[in-house]
């Protein structure tokens, strides 16, 4: 039971307190790039949840069953990025074959995930924090849910910009960054929750 609570707290912490986008600065490129519309943001979020959870699992296995026994710890970065790139390709092909509807929804966003630094970031953090297999997967899943939460909320805010008059130099990214800053302040309110 204690273990269950520990896992639950860990997930909550990854979603709210240590939100990967707003507190750890990972995955900001897609956060800014794919958040102009609520619909696309949701699609991206779903794709990230899928890939990040799987990537946490597989990079853990690669690290402890291939790299460590062979004494290739220094190949970590290269191995992980290749695993993630291959995984994204694989997921794309599987989804395309098995569920065309889901592919329609996620398809465009899947290739973008390879360069989402949050995915590689989670994999590296899992190793450096010495999480177990279950903890790694939970952390990956929590981080991805946190990412989705942030990007969906942010897209909701940004959709409102379209109908407002904004001074010219502030249009586009500057205003988006400043609203991200305010969101980040709001998320700081969760500090101390866990």
């Amino acid at each position, binding site marked *: 039971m204690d273990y269950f609570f520990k896992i639950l707290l860990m997930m909550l912490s990854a979603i709210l307190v240590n939100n990967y986008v*707003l*507190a*750890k*600065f*990972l*995955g*900001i*490129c897609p956060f*800014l790039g794919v958040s102009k519309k609520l619909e696309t943001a949701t699609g991206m979020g779903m794709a990230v949840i899928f890939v990040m959870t799987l990537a946490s699992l597989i990079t853990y296995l690669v690290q402890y069953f291939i790299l460590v026994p062979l004494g290739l710890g*220094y*190949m*970590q*970065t*290269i191995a992980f*990025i*290749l695993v993630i*790139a291959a995984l994204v390709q694989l997921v794309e092909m599987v989804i395309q074959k098995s569920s065309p509807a889901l592919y329609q929804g996620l398809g465009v966003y899947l290739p973008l995930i*390879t*360069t*989402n*630094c949050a995915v*590689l*970031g989670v994999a*590296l*953090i899992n190793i*450096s924090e010495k999480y177990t297999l279950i903890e790694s997967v939970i952390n990956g899943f929590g981080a991805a849910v946190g990412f989705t939460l942030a990007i969906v909320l942010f897209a909701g805010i940004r959709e409102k910009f379209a109908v407002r008059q904004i001074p*010219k*130099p*502030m*249009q586009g*990214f*500057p*205003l*988006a*960054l*400043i609203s*991200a*800053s*305010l969101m*980040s*302040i709001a998320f*700081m309110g969760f500090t101390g929750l866990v």
Partner: protein
Amino acid sequence: MKTNMRGVFLNGIFNENPIFRLVLGTCPTIAITTSLSNAFGMGAAATFVLVCSNAIIALIRDFIPSKVRIPAFVVIIAMFVTIVQLVMKAYLPDLDKSLGIFIPLIVVNCIILGRAEAFASKNSVRASIIDGIGMGAGFTIALIMMAAVRELVGNGTLMGNPVFGEGYQPALLFVLAPGGFLVFGLLMALINQVGLKRKRPVKPVEESSFKPPREATEKEDAR
């Protein structure tokens, strides 16, 4: 091949500044600009990777089949990042600690892959190296600008030296996450404002020297 090297170099700093113009590589920009020394370290590391990977990719650009070019680029970039990672761990352990996870994450920095795809895979080795230096310099300058503001306001220091008197209460928020977004947004708005103002007086002769030759000729054609 006739390429305007000066134009290629300055392009990375002004017209296509990776941070403020192209808005690439935002994660390290916001994450590590809490102090000036971090900004220098990150800028140097990224510039090294950028120059080396650009050079290698330009060298072998004719041998990479276009279907697998992205994985090939990623492996080349990851190799140089690993070199940086190991060198930094051995000789600069303090910097390595404060940059932390963002050193291995240079692999997924969109600037580097972006330049490999957009420039190095189409240009000569020399031009690609110059482009790497220019882009790296643009990246570093942007990092230094942000870090200077954040360290000064958020910590009251520059390069670790106190600037204000004893009575200064540092605005901690600027070193934390929200400050990163805020300073980035405000600086970008400022640069846009300067850009908008400078566009009004038309100075075609001076301006064309700041542009790569291709764009310059396009402009002349349009006229």
